């Protein structure tokens, strides 16, 4: 794409305009926000009551399964915001709104980054709610108040990284239904990780191998370390590195998909 003569300031302003619209749109759709917040909490309640005895397994890293599994909410929240990012972009393609945007001097990067603002807002809202509900339910954050804030920031960062997957799918398919149809597969990938059990305690060999190779495991473990361990540099570093790699990769893919979609001369 030949870039329009737009400088950095203009690009930032464009990002702001598209982001504002994206947030406004998202907040107008409770159907996007409520499941993101309610579903992970529901699953947490079920897991914490049903799998509580897992803590009795020798070597289990936490004394409360609630502490162990609260981070799963953040991951699910990230997944929901990825779906939001994908369906929102696909909706704009389907309705012709992207064509409207393409006729302005808007840059592709501004569309991509700005469009994710809505999904990021949902992720942030969700993360705050999971944290507050968790604290009320008795979750103890070993890394303290600073760790709790880092947890929120980390969760939003992960959500943005995963939103790139949604945006790629949205841009490639141009169909919100297709995006929603593909996401159960992504969900399956999430479950084949150390989400419900520490990797070294997974008894089934193939599952343990898959979980070890699954990048999601390291992101979860980074988040979880803040709750159950305290300040664990290795876990945090690994999680951040994997998150950053996912971010770069998915945004590169999304940008390419969007370039194909935006064939303007």
């Amino acid at each position: 794409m030949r870039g329009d003569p737009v400088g950095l300031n203009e690009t930032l302003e464009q990002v702001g305009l598209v982001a504002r619209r994206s947030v406004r749109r998202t907040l107008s759709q409770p159907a996007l926000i409520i499941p993101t917040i309610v579903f992970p909490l529901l699953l947490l309640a079920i897991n914490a009551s049903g799998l509580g005895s897992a803590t009795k397994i020798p070597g289990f890293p936490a004394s409360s399964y609630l502490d162990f599994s609260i981070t799963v909410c953040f991951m699910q929240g990230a997944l929901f915001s990825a779906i939001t990012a994908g369906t929102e972009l696909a909706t704009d393609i389907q309705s012709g709104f992207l064509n409207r945007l393409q006729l302005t001097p808007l840059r592709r990067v501004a569309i991509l980054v700005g469009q994710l603002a809505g999904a990021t807002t949902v992720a942030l809202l969700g993360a705050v709610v999971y944290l507050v509900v968790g604290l009320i339910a008795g979750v103890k954050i070993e890394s303290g108040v600073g760790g709790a804030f880092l947890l929120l920031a980390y969760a939003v960062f992960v959500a943005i990284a995963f939103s790139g997957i949604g945006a790629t799918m949205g841009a490639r398919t141009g169909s919100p239904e297709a995006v929603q149809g593909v996401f159960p597969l992504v969900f399956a990938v999430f479950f084949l990780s150390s989400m419900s059990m520490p990797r070294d305690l997974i008894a089934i060999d193939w599952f343990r191998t898959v979980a070890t190779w699954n990048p999601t495991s390291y992101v979860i473990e980074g988040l979880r370390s803040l709750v159950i361990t305290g300040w664990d540099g290795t876990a945090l570093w690994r999680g951040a590195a994997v998150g950053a790699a996912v971010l770069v990769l998915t945004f590169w893919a999304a940008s390419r998909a969007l370039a194909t979609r935006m064939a303007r001369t």
Partner: protein
Amino acid sequence: MTSMNGNHHGIVVDGLVRTFKGDIRAVAGIDLQVAPGEIYGFLGPNGAGKSTTVHMLTTLLPPTAGRATVAGFDVSSQGADVRRHIGAALQEAALDLFLTGREHMALQGGLSGLSKADRTRRGNELLERVGLTEAADRKVGGYSGGMKRRLDLAMALVHSPSILFLDEPTTGLDPQSRSALWDEVERLARDDGVTVFLTTQYLEEADVLADRVGIIDRGHIVAEGTPDELKRDIGGDSVEAIPADPHDLERAAAVLSRFGEPAAHSPKGAGVRLSQGAEQLAAIVRALDDEGVTLAHLQLHSPSLDDVFLAKTGRSLEGAGGEDEPAEEPVPAPPPTVAQGSERR
């Protein structure tokens, strides 16, 4: 004529081609020119290649071959320059149902590079112009089809473009909304000197609005000219006379034959294509009266653009929709019945 932003160039298209997957030639080499300040009607059935042409001229779709300049800039190599000079309301009326009319204007103004103050001023001005001031703070989801089209038009005008592309602007609108939109388009061309490239599948729309019309069918332009020229090409007005007494039919036909060639008529009447135009009508009435033929009905028919389409393609415009335009472009709703006969501009 000089346009709102002083651009003196119109549209020049030379051998433009667009091929899609499966070797479908949606646009098969078209040439056309639109002068600054002119309203050009691009008329054709569904799938004729109208939208593909508009997408190429608005830089959204690269041409496969040929060349086009819009506002003096090449659509293939100077896309950004073209976009700065054009406004477009495309077929989809792509609006965000969760945003208000005012928010749409602010977004469009901001993305077009207007300052915050200008965004507000220009937004309010255009909302008033298209009659949406009162509805400006309502979400677009609650707008009628006509209101959406008007907002779409207002958004296309935010940056004062010199050339406006309207892709089937009135498809699916009720007659009142269509007429309101026509008035606005006419005003833009007349008062502000905006060049308008308008696609339509409605004969009436092209007839009422366009200074010149290009008829496209299966990717080819089959006829071009002013609506009157096109109609004249296939013959002038015709008159049909139905006598009160069926026995007078032969005498009536004999009288009419003095005024020109025979024309289509109903079984109960006689018809003649007027060699010198509608002025002959009074003489025909007098001649029939002199012969003592009492008339039950006398009707003047003007040839319609449908007659032109029929003459050029052998098919009627309505129901002539092909399936050769690619699925990437939404197919508009079927056209409402268009009254034909003697409406004139």
